[in-house]
């Protein structure tokens, strides 16, 4: 006979690991959701623009300069995406692709995303040679697909946003392999009407121009803030 009281007592014993919840709280406390200060805004843009020089300036250097001057604000939407508004009212989004790799730890394949263990994918690689990790924020979707074995793997990071109507818009993707992992860094993808006239497709092509934006921004921001 099913005894609801007994079942409730059994369920009460089902609890998440204590440290896991505290870990999540600590993780969110590190995330800054607030609008960036003007100084920070300018520096983030500078870092972003430094990247864009690689692909955009070659095609249209004058357009690039004008664009850089007209930057208005940068609002961080979530942990991956920031929305930029120019003083002319034009907007575009930039989404940071996470740093991701597979580590071999005593024979266990651990997927590491942004320096944190995301999943133990040993069994998935052993069985299917395939694993998919997804991370959602309010609008941004990050999909990391790992193919291969623990020794020789290929990891594809796809970045996109879910629009208001529910449709998915892919920004772009970049690839890391077990051979290139030591040199691989998280890239940034740009998207918006502002790029329509550009002869270079920055939404897709920027993956070839990866720059460590997080390091750049943090270092510069701190040193400037101390002044």
């Amino acid at each position, binding site marked *: 006979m099913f005894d609801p009281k007994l079942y409730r007592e059994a369920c009460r014993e089902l609890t998440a690991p204590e440290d896991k919840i505290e870990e999540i709280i600590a993780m*969110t406390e590190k995330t800054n959701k607030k609008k960036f200060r003007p100084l920070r805004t300018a520096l983030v843009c500078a870092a972003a623009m430094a990247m864009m020089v690689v692909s955009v300036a070659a095609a249209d250097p004058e357009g690039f300069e004008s664009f850089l001057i007209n930057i208005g604000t940068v609002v961080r939407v979530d942990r991956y995406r920031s929305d930029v508004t120019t003083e002319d009212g034009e907007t575009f989004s930039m989404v940071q692709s996470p740093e991701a790799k597979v580590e071999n730890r005593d024979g266990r394949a651990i997927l590491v995303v942004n320096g944190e263990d995301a999943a133990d994918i040993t069994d998935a690689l052993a069985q299917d040679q395939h694993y998919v990790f997804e991370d959602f*924020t309010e609008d941004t979707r990050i999909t990391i697909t790992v193919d291969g074995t623990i020794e020789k793997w290929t990891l594809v990071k796809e970045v996109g946003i879910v629009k208001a109507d529910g449709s998915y818009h892919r920004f772009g993707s970049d690839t890391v392999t077990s051979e290139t992992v030591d040199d691989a860094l998280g890239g940034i993808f740009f998207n918006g009407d502002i790029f329509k006239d550009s002869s270079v497709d920055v939404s897709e092509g920027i993956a070839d121009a990866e720059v460590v934006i997080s390091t750049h921004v943090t270092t510069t921001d701190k040193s400037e803030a101390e002044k």
Partner: protein
Amino acid sequence: MTDEAFARAARTYGDTIYRVAYHALSSPHDAEDVMQTVLLRLYEHKKDFESEEHMKHWILRVAVNESRRVLRSFWRRTAVPMEEWRETAAPEDPARAEVLEAVMALEPKYRLAVYLYYYEGLSVAETAAAMKANVSTVQTWLLRARARLRKELSEEKKEESVYVRPEIIP
């Protein structure tokens, strides 16, 4: 949501999300992943909740949806063996372990309905809303779940009480 409000909500509802995901997925590891995803969505939720009850229902709905998404994911097409939950989650008390095992042996939709109705104390209509199902469908699920649990648990009882009459040797 402020950091303080989020921390309070995470400590209050972390276990609830974990239990929902656990009932849906039968895997402690996947349940932890779902808990993390749902809590991060809560943190990034921009609108204010009207009440504590509103927040709880939002959390339950998102937890069910996220668990279903994981359940549908192609890397979970191979079923999670029942042994996985036994390894980590069986209550020490045999009677509790037995009833939880019986519930976990049901299909995911039945397990979720049973959990939301019997543990979270939701009404049938609220359970249906959380599971995005019709009220009548949820009523049927609960009816079938109860019937299966009754059968399962009474059969176990019968097996336990089997008595072999000693043979009388003249």
